[in-house]
């Protein structure tokens, strides 16, 4: 232990073994999946351009700090909560880079939020001020994704339909920016309800 090269080699070997065993091996075994089918039946389904932009906004705002995108069927109560019907598997993520699997759930899991909340307007209201749609939530408001402006002539048809308690001054309207619309479109698109045969689900697990 009195020689630098010995420590260097020892650390190099240990870390390389750990790298080879836990990263290289699984990636070479299962890290080269390809999509099943094509077109509208493709698994996993493809995203539109606007949804891609929304995904970038999701990453920029750091939503992953509070929301995971992974459903567990083998443990936990994700399925009972209605967050998904089956375990998420590696195939679900092959088009994603980076992935938003996350490791904290101050907010709910969002893997299937598009199935629970398909309405884009709900997401816009929720992003503008979460207290409108989920009173008591700890989620911060993303007011900066919206523009409060004076109504000139006719009101915009994209303006938010705010409830009385959250209404802005008369003569004014709240209009989502393109980023807000893209983000809401992305959230409403999150849905992996397609079937993957190998993915564990409560029904399949109960047969065992």
């Amino acid at each position, binding site marked *: 232990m*009195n020689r630098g090269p010995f420590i260097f080699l020892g*650390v190099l070997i240990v870390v390389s073994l750990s790298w080879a065993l836990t990263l290289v091996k699984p*990636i070479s075994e299962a890290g080269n999946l390809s999509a099943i089918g094509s077109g509208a039946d493709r698994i996993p389904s493809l995203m539109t351009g606007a949804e891609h932009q929304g995904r970038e906004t999701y990453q920029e705002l750091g*939503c992953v700090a509070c929301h995971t995108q992974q459903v567990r069927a083998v443990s936990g109560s994700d399925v009972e909560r209605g967050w998904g019907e089956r375990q998420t598997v590696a195939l*679900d993520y*092959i088009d994603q880079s980076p*992935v938003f699997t996350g490791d*904290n759930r101050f907010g709910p899991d969002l893997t299937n939020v598009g199935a629970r909340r398909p309405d884009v307007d709900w997401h816009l209201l929720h992003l503008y001020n979460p207290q409108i749609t989920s009173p008591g939530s*700890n989620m911060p408001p993303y007011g900066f994704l919206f523009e409060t402006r004076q109504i000139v002539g006719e009101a915009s048809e994209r303006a938010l339909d705010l409830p009385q308690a959250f209404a802005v001054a008369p003569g004014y309207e709240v209009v989502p920016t393109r980023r807000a619309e893209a983000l809401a479109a992305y959230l409403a698109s999150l849905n992996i309800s397609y079937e993957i045969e190998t993915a564990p689900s409560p029904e399949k697990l109960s047969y065992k």
Partner: protein
Amino acid sequence: MNLICNLFSSLFPTLEGSAADRDREQAIDSSIRFAVLGLVKGSVFWLLISSVLGLVVSIKLHSPDYLGDSEFLTYGKVYPAFWNALVFGWLFNAGLACCAWILARLSGRPSGNSGLLAISSGAWNVAVVIGLIGIFRGELSPYRMLEFPSYAAPFLFAAFGGIGLWIVLTFKARAYRSAFASQWYALAGVFSFVWIYTVAQVMIFCLPAQGVFQAVVASWFKGNLFGLVIAPFAFATIYYLIPKALGQHIVGYRQAGIAFWSWIIFSSCSGLAALVSGPFPAWVASVGVVASFGLFLPITIFSMQFLSSLLASFSKIWDTISIRYIFYGVVALIASTLLIIVGSLRSVQDTVQFSQFDDGVRFLFLAGFAGMSFMGALYYILPRLLNKELASAGLADLQFWVQGLSIFVIALCAITGGIAHGSLLNGSTADAVAILQSTQSYLVLATIGYAMFLCGSMAYVVSFTWMLLAPRSEKEKSADLIKSAPELEYTPL
């Protein structure tokens, strides 16, 4: 026992101290003063920044409207900024300052190339600033501890390369053939960081692995960053400080080799335990669980060595400010490692997964173990480096109690709050908003902890700046000040 004592005195021929040794130590200190002080200044600055960010993060958790209008300060950006400032800012600067000084002292020769250390540590801090600006601008990646935008990575890498090169050169130029445990750990930390940072950058950003495997690489990197880089720097500090400041050899030093290699082996995989039940290969998480359990071996040896050595001179622990910090660090090391081991168990994961539990354990490990050890070491190093006495012993004392208590409060809130949150979230179908409301008191209490932590950090900033700026007294100007180690330590009246 005699054998160990002989070994010890051969490793530390300067412990007794003679005029010639004093001159040599002063020559070593003055050769690296500028560079190490630069690192210390960086660590003080980043400690303050991360304390402020930590307070903002904890307030935002229970009061979402707080600073809610600013796009630059959303929770999702401040949270990664806090952890990155804490680790790459505070702990890296403080750890490298301690390791650089310890290695220079152990090598027994004045460093001829401290300019390299000064330039590369300056570059490191610039790189961290670039990375944090990237996070606030929204160019962050979603992986823990890899949030810095990819354009900051080459700067970080190059700067660390310079610091690492200096550490290797200093080790190579040592006057004694033997090497002490501190030197092994400092070298291991440097080698590991270069390797794991390369792997993470290449496999996530340059030639990205497919889908979820990026998250596996990120988890591997995070575990190794804490276990193979931050922790070794802290071990290097503890192994050096206990004999030096306490005048007490490390009990059971012969087992240090086993502890070293078993720690390196098991912590190189233990970070993967967090991937349990996810869309990842199940056996990868199992390797992580097994490796976490392997940590029992090194942690037993560390507990035996450090606690026995410290308790052998128990009365000195409370009289010597730097050793008091080290004692806190050792207790936090044992507690957090046991929590890491227990937390890797499948049944515990079923309760605490995706809750704040992991953040609490991480904070205890990073701030409690590594941070407090570095802080204690700096209270030992600074008087020698600056040839001045501690500006105010009372302030250092205040900082110890405030910061020690706040780390305990923050970790306790996150761990117990995480268990309360996780058991409802993972074990029931109760409404997610209602669950969070029920754990609100933990979040509010954690804010009090972070506010105290900020107060402690400010005490440190004042204490450090005061010491830096105060003119040397007549007594301090005479070389006699560095007479023998314990006299400079703070002793209460």
